[in-house]
């Protein structure tokens, strides 16, 4: 297979995907929700075929176009309708509240205690008692809010101490 043809196809695929990603927004790159992840996954697989000349550029454009259009319309649908949003993205699940493990949420998301501890350690939290809420977000990432006494001291805390002393 001629190398110049491969180079031209690669250049075309790169420029086309760049255009599509710029037009359809930054969400796909962020992979912050299941549909973004799904779109990125399929997009990653689709690029292979036109590069080696297995499908025509037009077939590639139509496949990517339909995928991105579906992604965009789903994203718009979930913004407009909370119901569509829940169906597409799922709902965040609380795993810790006020220092106590939420076993129901952990069972639902199939997260065991060791995994939860590891996820909290990634957030520099050693003990779940420090946690006000730990929520498994739709993105699969753990969102953590610490209890007031466990939070690192801020500048405003120092000011409060000063005021109390006076």
């Amino acid at each position, binding site marked *: *297979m*001629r190398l110049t*043809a491969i180079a*031209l*196809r690669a250049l*075309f695929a790169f420029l*086309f995907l760049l*255009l*599509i990603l710029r*037009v*359809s*927004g930054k969400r796909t790159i962020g992979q912050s929700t299941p549909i973004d992840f799904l779109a990125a996954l399929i997009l990653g697989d689709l690029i292979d075929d036109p590069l*080696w*000349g*297995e*499908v*025509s*550029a*037009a077939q590639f*454009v*139509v496949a990517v*176009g339909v995928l*991105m*259009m579906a992604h*965009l*319309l789903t994203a*718009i649908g979930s913004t407009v309708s909370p119901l569509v949003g829940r169906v597409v993205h799922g709902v965040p699940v609380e795993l810790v509240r006020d220092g106590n493990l939420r076993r129901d949420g952990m069972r639902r998301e199939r997260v065991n205690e060791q995994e939860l501890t590891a996820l909290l350690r990634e957030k520099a939290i050693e003990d779940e008692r420090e946690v006000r809420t730990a929520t498994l977000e739709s993105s699969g990432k753990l969102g953590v809010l610490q209890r007031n006494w466990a939070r690192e001291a801020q500048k405003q805390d120092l000011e409060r101490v000063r005021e109390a002393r006076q």
Partner: protein
Amino acid sequence: VKAPWILLASLIAVLGLLAGVVFGLDDRTVLVPPPEAVVESFVRKLEMGRYELATDHLSEAAKQQIDAATLQRLTEALEQETGPIQDVSGEPGTMNHDQAQASATLELPDQRTAHLRFSLKREHGLWRIHGLGDLAAGAAS
């Protein structure tokens, strides 16, 4: 909500550009699969037993004469002669405006190889297999 319309307009513009390159500039190997890629894909489908899908690579005229059952019969006859096909790679051949020839190199047991030549024809900008050549003649070389 503007984004879907911008996306749709971009897609139409890119498809228009592609049509211009393929039909206007007569691109036959860059933005459309070249003859050797078509031949490779066709033989891979035969090797995997996906005869119905393989007929998609045939030209309109060839489709009138060759159906999935014919492809199955020819492939089975070939494999009886050569042994099971282990891998396929397309090799470029000659190209003359809307006609081309390309071959598939078959990797066979005991490090043997065989070649199948096919003739192709361009339809609607895409290369299609017009004649089964060696496969129909039962003469892999």
